[in-house]
C-alpha cells in the first residue's frame, strides 16, 4: 500500500525565501535580475546579453542535438552576437517595435536566434507549432497581421507558399535552407541575411509593460485566441524556474516542449537562460530509447516534460532503463495535463525521484500552482500556489456574481487573483473575450478543481469543450470549421475521446449533405482533407458518420452529449463531464 504523501527530507531542494530572508515580493525578484523600479525591461537582454557581459559569457546557453545525433553548442556570448545580427537584419527590413514576427520551424539553432533577436528589438514574437498545416498558419498570421515569418525551405514550400497570397501583411519570409536548393525569389535567405548584418547592439528599449510574446490558444468557440504577454513576464519565468523546477545556474536542463507552445517558450527558451543554465534542445520527435540516452549522455540535471511522454516511457517498460542509474538527474517536473499518481510513483521507482506536477496555462504565462521543490508531494495533486500567486476555488454561473468557495473538497472553478507579472494582457483583437476571463480581481481559468483541507489543489476537469491531446490544447471549432469546408459535409462536431497515452484523441462526428452517401472512400477523403489543412497533430484521428448531431435550442452543437454517447454515459446526466 502506497502512502498518500511523499515526504521530502529537510534541506532537499531550495528554500522558497528570497535572498537572505527577505519576504516575497515581485520587486525583490526584479532586484535579483538587476531591475530597478521603472527601468527598461527586455526579455532577450535579461536572458542573453546580461550573461554575455558576465563570467557566464563562454558557458553554453544551448546544446543542440540534431536528428542524426550531432551535437553543437552555442555560448551566451555567441548567442548575444547572433541575436544582435538578426535584430539588426530585422531593423534593416523595416521591422519595428510592436510588429509581429512569426517563427515556424523545428527546434534548430536558428529558431532560438530568431525568437531572441526579435524580442531584442521589441518585436512581438509569435511561435507556430511546426506540425501545423497551412490553415492554422494562415489564420494566426492573418489575425496578428504578421509582418515577417521565419521558416524552413521545406515548410515554406508545403505549407506557406500556397497561402501566402492571402496574407498581405506578411512583407518578408526568411528561409532556413533545409533543401539545398536556391530559395524562391519572394523569400530571403537566413544565412545571407545574418552574414551581412551588423554586430552592433540591436537592443531597442522596452518596458515591463511592452508586448513581447503572442501565444495562440484554443477556446471552445471561434477562431484561436492570441494571448499577448509582456516583457515583465520574465519575473515569473525566473522565479518559478527556481521554485517549481529547482533550476540552478550550474544545471543542464531539458524542457522537452516545443517552443510552438507556451511551455517551450517560457521554459524551453526564457527561464533557463534567465537562470544562466545550459539547455538541451533535441530536434527529433519523441523516441523512448533516444530520450533515455539523452538523459544519460547529456547529464541532464533537471527535466521538465509532459504526461504523454511519461506514459509512453512507462509503456516502453523497465528494460528501457536497465542501462543503469542517471546520477546527474536531480529533479523531474511535468506539465500539460494532470499527472496521475501512478506516474509520480513510477518516477520514484524508476529514477528514485518523484515527478512534480505543475499547473499553468497559456494565459498565465508561467507556472502558477505546483508541487514545489521543498514541498511534500501528494501524488495526483496539482500542488499549491507558488509565492506571489493567490488561488481560489469559485462558483461561477452565467449571469450570477462569482462566489469564492472556502469549504474544502468542493468542486469549483480555479481562479487566480490578478496582478502576477506574466498574466496575459489581451486576446489580440478580441477585447470582449478577454473581459469574459475576469470577474472583479479574479482571472477565471476554466479548469475545475477542488482544494483539500491542506490547501492542495486537485484537478477535476475542464469547464468547457476544449480538447487536450498529447498536452496540446485543441479547439473543436477550428477542427469543425475545416471539416465543414469539405463539399460532402453538412455539419461536424468534434470531441476529445479518452486515450490511455495521449489523454484525449480527436474524434469527429460528421453529418453529410443530402444525396451524399457515407463510404470508406469518403471517410479517407475527409481525413486526408483535414490532415492536409490542419496538420497531423490537430486533425481528427477518427471520423464517424452520423445521421444527425444534437443541438441546443440556440443551435449550438452539444459536444458534451456527443461525448456522453461516446463514453456510454447516461445522456441525461452529463453535468460532470470534462
Amino acid at each position: 500500500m502506497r502512502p498518500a504523501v511523499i515526504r521530502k527530507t529537510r534541506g532537499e531542494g531550495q528554500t522558497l525565501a528570497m535572498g537572505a530572508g527577505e519576504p516575497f515580493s515581485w520587486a525583490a525578484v526584479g532586484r535579483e535580475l538587476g531591475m530597478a523600479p521603472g527601468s527598461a525591461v527586455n526579455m532577450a537582454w535579461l536572458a542573453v546579453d546580461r550573461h554575455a557581459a558576465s563570467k557566464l559569457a563562454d558557458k553554453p546557453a544551448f546544446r543542440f542535438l540534431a536528428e542524426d545525433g550531432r551535437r553543437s553548442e552555442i555560448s551566451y556570448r555567441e548567442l548575444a552576437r547572433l541575436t544582435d545580427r538578426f535584430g539588426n537584419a530585422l531593423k534593416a527590413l523595416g521591422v519595428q517595435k510592436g510588429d509581429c514576427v512569426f517563427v515556424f520551424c523545428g527546434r534548430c539553432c536558428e529558431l532560438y536566434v530568431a525568437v531572441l533577436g526579435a524580442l531584442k528589438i521589441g518585436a512581438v514574437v509569435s511561435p507556430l507549432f511546426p506540425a501545423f498545416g497551412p490553415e492554422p498558419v494562415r489564420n494566426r498570421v492573418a489575425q496578428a497581421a504578421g509582418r515577417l515569418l521565419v521558416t524552413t525551405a521545406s515548410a515554406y514550400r508545403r505549407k506557406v507558399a500556397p497561402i501566402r497570397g492571402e496574407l498581405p501583411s506578411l512583407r518578408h519570409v526568411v528561409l532556413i535552407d533545409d533543401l539545398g536548393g536556391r530559395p524562391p525569389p519572394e523569400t530571403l535567405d537566413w544565412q545571407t541575411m545574418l552574414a551581412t548584418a551588423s554586430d552592433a547592439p540591436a537592443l531597442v528599449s522596452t518596458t515591463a509593460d511592452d508586448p513581447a510574446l503572442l501565444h495562440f490558444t484554443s477556446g471552445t468557440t471561434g477562431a484561436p485566441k492570441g494571448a499577448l504577454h509582456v516583457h515583465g513576464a520574465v519575473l515569473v519565468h525566473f522565479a518559478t524556474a527556481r521554485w517549481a523546477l529547482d533550476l540552478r545556474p550550474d544545471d543542464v536542463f531539458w524542457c522537452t516542449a516545443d517552443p510552438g507552445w507556451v511551455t517551450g517558450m517560457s521554459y524551453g527558451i526564457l527561464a533557463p537562460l534567465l537562470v544562466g543554465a545550459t539547455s538541451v534542445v533535441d530536434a527529433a520527435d519523441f523516441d523512448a530509447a533516444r530520450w533515455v540516452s539523452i538523459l544519460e549522455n547529456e547529464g541532464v540535471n533537471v527535466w521538465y516534460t509532459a504526461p504523454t511522454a511519461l506514459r509512453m516511457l512507462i509503456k516502453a517498460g523497465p528494460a528501457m532503463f536497465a542501462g543503469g542509474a542517471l546520477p546527474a538527474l536531480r529533479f523531474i517536473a511535468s506539465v500539460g495535463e494532470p499527472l496521475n499518481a501512478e506516474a509520480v510513483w513510477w518516477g520514484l521507482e524508476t529514477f528514485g525521484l518523484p515527478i512534480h506536477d505543475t499547473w499553468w496555462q497559456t494565459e498565465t504565462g508561467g507556472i502558477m500552482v505546483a508541487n514545489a521543490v521543498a514541498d511534500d508531494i501528494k501524488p495526483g495533486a496539482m500542488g499549491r500556489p507558488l509565492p506571489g500567486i493567490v488561488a481560489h476555488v469559485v462558483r461561477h454561473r452565467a449571469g450570477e456574481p462569482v462566489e469564492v468557495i472556502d469549504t474544502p473538497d468542493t468542486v469549483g472553478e480555479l481562479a487566480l487573483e490578478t496582478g502576477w507579472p506574466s498574466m496575459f494582457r489581451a486576446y489580440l483583437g478580441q477585447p470582449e473575450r478577454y473581459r469574459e476571463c475576469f470577474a472583479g480581481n479574479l482571472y477565471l481559468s476554466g479548469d475545475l478543481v477542488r482544494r483539500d483541507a491542506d490547501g492542495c489543489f486537485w484537478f477535476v476537469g475542464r469547464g468547457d469543450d476544449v480538447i487536450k491531446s498529447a498536452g496540446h490544447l485543441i479547439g473543436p471549432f477550428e477542427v469543425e470549421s475545416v471539416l465543414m469546408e469539405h463539399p460532402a459535409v453538412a455539419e461536424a462536431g468534434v470531441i476529445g475521446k479518452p486515450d490511455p497515452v495521449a489523454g484525449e484523441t480527436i474524434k469527429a462526428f460528421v453529418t453529410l449533405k443530402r444525396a451524399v452517401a457515407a463510404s470508406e472512400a469518403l471517410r479517407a477523403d475527409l481525413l486526408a482533407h483535414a490532415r492536409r489543412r490542419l496538420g497531423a497533430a490537430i486533425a481528427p484521428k477518427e471520423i464517424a458518420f452520423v445521421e444527425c448531431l444534437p443541438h441546443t435550442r440556440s443551435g449550438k452543437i452539444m459536444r458534451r452529449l456527443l461525448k456522453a454517447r461516446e463514453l456510454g454515459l447516461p445522456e441525461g446526466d452529463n453535468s460532470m463531464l470534462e
Partner: protein
Amino acid sequence: MPLDQEQIRTTMLDIIRTLAPETDTGSIVPDLPLRKQIDLDSMDWLNVLEAIRERIGVDVPETDYGKLGTLDNVVAYLASRLAES
C-alpha cells in the same frame, strides 16, 4: 508462409494510406527518413505500429523503434523478424 519483402512493402504503404490518406505513397523515397516525408505525429506512429502488429504479425518493442527510420529499413526489419519466428 510468411510475407515476402514485396508483400511487407505493399502492406506498409497500405497502412500509411489508411492512417494518413493525404499521402502520395508513390512519392515516398524508400531510403530517406520516412517521417520526414509524411506528416505523422507520435499518435499516428503508435497507430502504424499497432497496424503492423495486427496485419503483419510483428510486435515492435520500443527499443527497436530506431531501426525503423526509412521505408527500406522498416521492410528489412520486419522481414528479418518474420524470418526469425
